[in-house]
Structures are given as C-alpha cells and as structure tokens.
C-alpha cells in the first residue's frame, strides 16, 4: 500500500519537476507562472494591461492572416449559395421595394413630426458619428461570441461604443487596443440589453443565448408577444441609444426568442458609433 503511494508520488514529482534535455522550463514552474498571470489579470494589474494590448495588436493581425484562407473559402461558398438563389430573391425583393417605398413616405412624415415635437418639449436630440470598420476575426468560440475590428484608440474608438451593421445593433465595444478593438456580440451569453418591444411598448431585457438568436428576459409582467413584434433598444441605463433596431420576436425558435436582423456569423464591415448628446 505504502509502496503504491510512493510510486504515485514519484510519478507525480517526475511529471511536474523533471525536465528533459530539450525542455527549457519545468511544468510546475510554468503552472505557477500561469496562475500568477491569472491572478494579475483578475486584479486588472496595469503592467498586464499594457502587455495585453501589445500582445493583442500582434496576435489579432497574425490571427487574421492565418484565418484568411478559411475566411475566403467560406465567403466563396456563401457567394455560390447567393448566386443560385438570385432569381427567387429578386422577385421577393421587388415586392419588398414597393412596400418599403410606401412605408418610407410615412416614416419621413413621422420623423419630421417627431423632431418637431421633441423641439417643442425640449428633449435631447442625439447624434452620433460613425467609424466604418472591417471585421478582422469573427471568433465563434465555445464561451465568448465576439468580433475583432480593425479600428482602435488611434481612430478614437472607446469602450462602450455600439457596433451596428446596416443600422441594426450587433454588439458593443469591450476592449480597445491602439489599432484594433474587440466587440461582444448581442448573441453572447453575457450580453444583456434593455429593450422595448413594439407594438405595445413593453420594456424588457434582451439576453444572448450563445446561439444565433436572443431571448426576452426579466419583463415586469408575463409577456405574451406575437411573432414579428419588433425589438428596439430602450435607451434605459444609458449604455445604448434608444430606438436601435435589433430583431423581431420569433416564438418558433424558442418562447420569446428574438431573431436578429443581422446575420452575426456573416459580419464583414460594421459601423462603430459613439453616442454624443447635443441639446438643440
């Protein structure tokens, strides 16, 4: 029994402390060093922050380069799929254009009326400048759903800015380096956005599911939402501007599920927007 225990200890000691001729570091030393790094990361140690920014810059570029062939391949596959569906889509789009042209006239009238009413009641009119950015890496990891953008602090990108694709909300900037930045996607499990659901004006929270759709959570009352109700940012909490379109309710995917307007797995160019407040 004692001999078995000794063998176990010898094997463990040999595995963690002994290093062969070609190994520069023992396993135990590296494990201790990595725990030390995790500890410093948790404390948001300033040195680690700068090292991370430096490593991020180099790694993001390298990663984009390594991923280039794979990205091009998947783009080509998508292109072929689109090509074969083009006729059918054309018919649908023609119908939609007619419908949208009609709607556009109504929206213009409502927009002007809204602006005029806001001026009367003295409300804030929010404007924002956009920074067009290319998606370098759309890493779809097991835990985090995020994208790397090719604009950073050099281009005045700041943490908390919103990321839009064709005016639809897709994420928020969570990390900024000198020439790159990382944005968490609205599909991420850690994403929670205050939203308003129209028609009805229900206030709620939209959470990511880690999949390609979101879910309505934490509403004040038991909600019974019909399919195709629109979900917009409510602007509560001040992290997002009010009225950014996100998606529509689709109870088929899950009860109170939200189908995003943007395909988050196909992002190539996005707009990063600050929310400057100008009182008119």
């Amino acid at each position, binding site marked *: 029994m004692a001999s078995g225990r000794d063998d176990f200890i010898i094997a463990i000691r040999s595995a*963690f402390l002994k290093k062969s001729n070609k*190994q520069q570091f023992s*396993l135990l030393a590296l494990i201790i060093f990595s725990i030390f790094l995790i500890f410093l990361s948790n404390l948001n140690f300033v040195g680690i922050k700068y090292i*991370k920014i430096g490593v991020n810059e180099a790694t*993001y570029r390298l990663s984009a380069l390594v991923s280039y062939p794979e990205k091009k391949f998947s783009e080509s596959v998508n292109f072929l799929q689109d090509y074969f569906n083009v006729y059918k889509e054309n018919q649908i789009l023609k119908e939609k254009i007619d419908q949208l042209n009609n709607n556009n006239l109504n929206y213009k009238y409502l927009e002007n009326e809204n602006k005029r009413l806001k001026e009367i009641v003295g409300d804030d009119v929010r404007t924002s400048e956009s920074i067009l950015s290319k998606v370098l890496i759309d*890493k779809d990891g*097991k*835990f985090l759903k995020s994208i790397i953008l090719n604009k950073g602090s050099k281009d005045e990108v700041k943490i908390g800015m919103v990321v839009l694709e064709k005016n639809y909300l897709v994420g928020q900037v969570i990390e900024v380096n000198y020439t790159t930045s990382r944005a968490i996607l609205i599909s991420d*499990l850690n994403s929670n956005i205050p939203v308003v659901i129209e028609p009805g004006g229900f206030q709620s929270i939209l959470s990511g599911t880690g999949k390609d759709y979101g879910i309505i959570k934490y509403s004040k009352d038991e909600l019974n939402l019909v399919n195709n109700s629109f979900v917009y940012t409510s602007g509560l909490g001040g992290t997002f501007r009010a009225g950014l379109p996100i998606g529509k309710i689709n109870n088929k995917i899950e009860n109170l599920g939200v189908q995003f307007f943007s395909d988050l797995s196909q992002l190539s160019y996005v707009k990063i927007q600050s929310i400057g407040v100008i009182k008119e």
Partner: protein
Amino acid sequence: MVQKTSSFKNKFLKYLPLILLYFSVLNEFDIDFSNVGVLSFNLPFIIIFYWSLKDPDQIGNGLIFIAGILNDVTIGYPIGVSSFIYLTIIGFAAYLRNITLRPSIYKDSLVFLVAILFANSVNSLILSFVFSIEINFFEIIVNITFTFLLYFLFARMFNYLKPMGT
C-alpha cells in the same frame, strides 16, 4: 538536391505538430466548428496531449505556454487561463508516460478523457467564478465528446507522422 528536399521534408514534418498547434490557436475557428450544427472539438488539446505523451521534446512546455497566451488573446479570455489549462493537460500526459510500461491507445484515450474533463471543469470554474463569465455547458459537453472521439483518429494520424519527422 534530393538530399536538400528530403531534409526540408523531415524538418517540416518535425515541426508539423508545432505548426498545427499554433495554426489551431490562431485560427479564427480554433478548428472548432461550433457554427456547423453542433460539431465542435478542441484540436489543441489533442495535439498537446498526444505529443506530450509520445514525444515531449517535440513541442516544448514553453511553446505550449505561449500558445495558451495566444489562444487567450484570440478568443478574448483573461490572460493565463488557456496556458494553465494546456499545462494541466501536459501534467496528465507526463504522469501517464511515467507510469506506463506497455502503451495502448485505449489507456491513453481514457486518461485523455479524464484530462479534458478536468481541464474543461477548471476552465469553466475559473471563467465563471473568478471572471464572472457566463458559460453554455451544453456546448462544452458536446466539445468534450467530439474531442474524445476524434482523439483516436488524430492519434492514428500522428502515429503515422511521428517516425517520418525524426
């Protein structure tokens, strides 16, 4: 000329595990096809376990540590988490190497399963308790299952490559 080509080929095959490891940690998808249905697996785990078990001098511990740092940066984890996870996998492989007299793929794969279960558990614990990152456990279980099943395939491939690179 023939000798030069053969020397280049040998060198390439010698460094192939290292190239594969760095390619998989830097690659956009982490050879992690989680966006193709539910199929997802972790190639770095397989590479690290296999080569630490069969030929630890092929990929140094320091290089695996750096691969972990690069993986953290690429997927947005706090620095040090992946390195720690990779090093625990090396620990399991080194322990198995020390106690094994007659290696067999079944014993190796069983220890590999324990190693990836342990590594993913520690990973989830660090991410959820230390850094308060929410985790989808279903995806992790799927990932562990496919990583375990594909170990047999990759181990066979690496068994074939190993003598060519020496």
